[in-house]
């Protein structure tokens, strides 16, 4: 046996194994190809450009940047330091110190990470002198948002750290980077943020920079974010927020001739500065967690309500267009409208005493339910079947931007609802529904749902006599007016221009006529056309329904000719249209057109008026419903037990 061959064999075997292993590492496995992005020895340093500023339509600064300072740490460089002194300096406890150091060390001992975020400017000046005593710690400057005017948080939005889901879809962002989370900050993120520059830096294993990678040939320069000018009139916005104090609801004002959103109020509101910096996470928990007031819920864009009487305007226009009525068609009002044989099939009127028969103009300014029930019935019954009649009506209504997303440039919204025949077929199979079944739509109750911005847009379409521009919030980018076809091309409604004048005359009388529903909101020297609304609403809990105080609705535009502003106001549980929404809408119009008010008493009443009691009542009702539900459950249980007992007895 030749033992020497074992030696040759071992050496050759090891050589072959090594070469195979190298072949795998260097040729087959392509985890580590020579690219700067794929190379841990190259640090990517981002050069974050300044985020763009945001201004209102008159050039008032709404969103700016403020510098902030993070205390950074490289855990492995931390030497023996006087922790007591250090903690006092940073105003943290020793526990915090230990906890933070542990957290950062766990993340990485070599890579710098944030030890303490967002030290104030004042502290920074002081800390900077002392920081060099503490090896391993240093201060890094960052930029935060700042809102000089504490208003319109729902429009402006805020920025926050990009979350992991988002990162997966957007390779631009790295963990911990900021991006717009809501509002304009989110909608126009790419314009505002600019484009970060990338520097590839050769580093050693201690993460120490030793110069640009390959002389910087892969580096790119940062592109500064652009400034935005919004269509918002911040003075009007703030005025609206003040008028809506202690009331829940929304105000949306639009310039009809352009579709520019002048005001987008949602109350209860909050200070946008709450969503900045270190306090953001805490505050967002508070705001999101407030399920009663829901301050982060945009009632101008997201709240779907039955529109109530303002929707009668649409039915009047459709009636004229479909030729089922003329302005002089008379209808009789018997204090309501009886649409069936049963005593319950009666839609009551609140229009009080007025002469009968009633025609279009008075129908509108008196908001006569009976009148519009008749009109609606004629519209639906004009077609051969109820279904085609409903679909035809639906087409007209939708042409006002109702029942679907409007296409405005804010990231949230609701579709609202304009029901069609399919919708009713689902509820009433075999086509067993007729015009009386859906008669509530005549007065904007029933199944119709709209958001305040849809109502405002509808008002703008009426003001324009038949067309509207998609509402939008962006006016200029870097002071250059935007050119977006979506916002500059008029959208026509299906109603001919000639039908608008008589309807608008009716709306004018709502305010101007001594018998109009909003006569108390009349403003001297301004020709306001409006329509009050009182929307019923219900709360339900597991099938138990209870009616709450009606919502107060008002739509208006002014002046009558050449309208400058179209507005929709919605006040939750505000009793009826002319009680809260009417005054608020007309005060807004006055403020916008003249800059002042001729009705300081009305203004004062709005500023100070509160519906807090109503909202407390709602909570009580909801609680009551829950209790009622439990009581019914209990009762049902007991009944069952009794019945079981009885069955037992009879069996015996």
């Amino acid at each position: 046996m030749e033992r020497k061959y074992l030696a040759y064999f071992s050496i050759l075997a090891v050589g072959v194994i090594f070469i195979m292993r190298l072949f795998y590492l260097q040729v087959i496995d392509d985890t580590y190809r020579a690219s700067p992005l794929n190379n841990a020895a190259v640090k990517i340093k981002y050069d974050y450009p300044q985020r763009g500023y945001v201004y209102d339509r008159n050039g008032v600064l709404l969103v700016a940047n403020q510098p902030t300072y993070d205390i950074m740490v490289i855990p492995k460089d931390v030497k023996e330091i006087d922790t007591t002194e250090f903690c006092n300096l940073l105003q943290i406890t020793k526990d915090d110190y230990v906890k933070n150091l542990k957290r950062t060390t766990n993340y990485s001992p070599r890579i710098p990470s944030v030890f303490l975020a967002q030290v104030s400017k004042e502290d920074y000046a002081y800390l900077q002198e002392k920081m060099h005593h503490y090896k391993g710690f240093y201060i890094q400057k960052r930029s935060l948002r700042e809102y000089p005017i504490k208003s319109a948080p729902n429009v402006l939005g805020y920025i926050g750290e990009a979350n992991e889901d988002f990162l997966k879809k957007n390779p631009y962002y790295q963990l911990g980077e900021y991006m717009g989370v809501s509002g304009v900050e989110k909608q126009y993120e790419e314009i505002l943020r600019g484009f970060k520059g990338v520097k590839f830096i050769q580093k050693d294993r201690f993460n120490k920079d030793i110069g640009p990678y390959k002389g910087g040939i892969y580096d790119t320069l940062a592109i500064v974010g652009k400034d935005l000018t919004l269509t918002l009139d911040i003075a009007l916005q703030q005025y609206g927020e003040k008028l809506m104090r202690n009331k829940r609801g929304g105000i949306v004002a639009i310039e009809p001739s352009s579709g520019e959103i002048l005001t987008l109020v949602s109350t209860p509101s909050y200070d946008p500065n709450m969503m900045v910096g270190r306090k953001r996470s805490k505050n967002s928990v508070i705001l999101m967690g407030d399920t009663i007031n829901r301050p982060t819920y945009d009632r101008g864009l997201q709240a779907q309500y039955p529109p109530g009487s303002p929707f009668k305007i649409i039915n009047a226009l459709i009636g004229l267009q479909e030729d089922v009525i003329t302005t002089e068609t008379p209808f009789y009002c018997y204090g309501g409208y009886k649409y069936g044989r049963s005593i319950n099939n009666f839609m009551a009127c609140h229009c009080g005493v007025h002469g009968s028969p009633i025609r279009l103009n008075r129908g509108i300014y008196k908001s006569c339910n009976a009148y519009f029930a008749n009109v609606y019935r004629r519209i639906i019954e004009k077609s051969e079947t109820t279904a085609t009649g409903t679909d035809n009506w639906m087409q007209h209504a939708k042409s006002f931007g109702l029942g679907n997303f409007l296409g405005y440039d804010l990231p949230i919204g609701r579709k609202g609802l304009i029901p069609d025949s399919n919708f009713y077929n689902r509820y009433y199979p075999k086509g067993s529904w007729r015009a009386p079944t859906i008669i509530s739509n005549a007065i904007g109750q029933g199944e119709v749902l709209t958001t305040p911005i849809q109502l405002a847009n509808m008002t703008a379409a009426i003001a324009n006599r038949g067309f509207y521009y998609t509402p939008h919030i962006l006016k200029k980018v870097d002071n250059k007016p935007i050119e977006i076809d979506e916002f500059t091309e008029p959208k026509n409604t299906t109603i001919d221009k000639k039908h608008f004048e008589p309807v608008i005359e009716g709306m004018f009388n709502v305010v101007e006529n001594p018998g109009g529903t909003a006569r108390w909101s009349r403003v001297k020297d301004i020709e306001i056309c409006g329509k009050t609304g009182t929307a019923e609403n219900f709360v339900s809990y597991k099938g138990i329904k209870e009616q709450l105080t009606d919502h107060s609705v008002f739509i208006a535009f002014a002046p009558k000719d050449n309208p400058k502003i179209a507005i929709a106001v919605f006040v939750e549980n505000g009793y009826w249209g002319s009680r809260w929404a009417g005054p608020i809408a007309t005060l807004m119009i006055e403020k916008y057109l003249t800059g002042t008010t001729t009705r300081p008493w009305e203004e004062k009443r709005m500023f100070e008026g509160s519906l807090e009691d109503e909202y407390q009542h709602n909570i009580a009702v909801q609680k009551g419903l829950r209790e009622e539900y439990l009581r019914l459950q209990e009762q049902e249980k007991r009944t069952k037990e009794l019945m079981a007992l009885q069955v037992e007895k009879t069996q015996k």
Partner: protein
Amino acid sequence: MRKRKSNIFAGIDPVLVLLFLALIFFGWVNIYAASITEGGTEIFDFSTLHGKQLQWIALSGVLILITISLDSKFYENFSGIIYIIALIALAGLFLFGNNINGATSWYNFGFSSIQPSEFAKAATALALANFLSTPTNDLKNFNTQLRAFIIVLLPTILIVLQPDAGSALIYLSLVFVLYREGLPAYYIGIGLLAILLFVLTLALGLKVSLIIVLTLITGFFLYLARTNNANLRRDWLKFLGTYLAIGLFIFSVNYVFNNVFEQRHRDRFAIVLGKTSDTQGIGYNTNQSMITIGSGGWTGKGFLEGDRTQGNFVPEQPTDYIFSTVGEEWGFLGSTAIILIFVAFIIRIIQLAERQKSDFSRIFGYATATIFFFHFMINIGMVIGLIPTIGIPLPFFSYGGSSLWGFTLLLFIFIRLDADRTYVW
């Protein structure tokens, strides 16, 4: 003994010397690449690692001259004394040694440090060769086996105590020389079996490995009985003994690993066995080294273009992890070339050893080949992530004067012996 020629270079094997020079050259080039990251690109800047290594290389020229000018009989006759001096030097470390990185392996002479374990390799090889070449000693004989093991184990124990487990492993590898010289095969067999069981136990855990191994043994016994090579009734004591021995061994491996080993040792094994992949802490070096080698691709990034080498990413790169520089800057082709040079180098030593007439020269040649082979296998195996982290240098590549001189001494004593093969027997 005949008087040899006056020319000290006569009879020297040119192939081996050329391979040696190639290794020295490529070694230094890569040390240069790995050390200019600290600043100083001047070749003769003696404050840098590559500058210092150049000094060591120049001085090893002197060492070579001295080594080959001595008579080959000198090494044979003085091997016992050299061995004792080496042992004293190793033992003296416990009194006068310098502790660097947790191991007392160095004498500090002010201008430089010397690591005696590097030189003691040659001394141990000489003593072993001398002992085994004595005609009265026969490795079939237990007494000879015992004494041969003692020669190997004395320096091993001294080095384990420093502690420098890596170097100690190299000394243990000399057991393979004993095998070549007639040590019964079952020593090696049992040794390999022990290693196999060790790895198996760690990889699969106590229960699974017990089941697997005992099943295999039972199968083997049944096979033996079937082929009438054994009789279950007659040999039951042997079978039982084997079961007990292997079972006990697996239990003790488990015990030693969990209770005697330190955490760092356990971690190293765990990484190679794929049980954990901590790339930031304990697995950092190996992971960085593999990434660095992998990033080289087919042809590498080019001399001084390896950004991970230049970024100083691999710890200990000029010393234990020097091969990662080769991998990154010279790619698959370059690293393969270096591996082939090493393989050729070691095979050449064995070829030369086989042609010796003198037992002493042959055994010493085998010892030399074994030492180089184990350094080569363990170092590169570690750098490319095939075996656990064991810190020993790659001959002629790793930065360090002691190891360079130790290897040079070892190689050129053998070259001297080989050059004199026609005179010495």
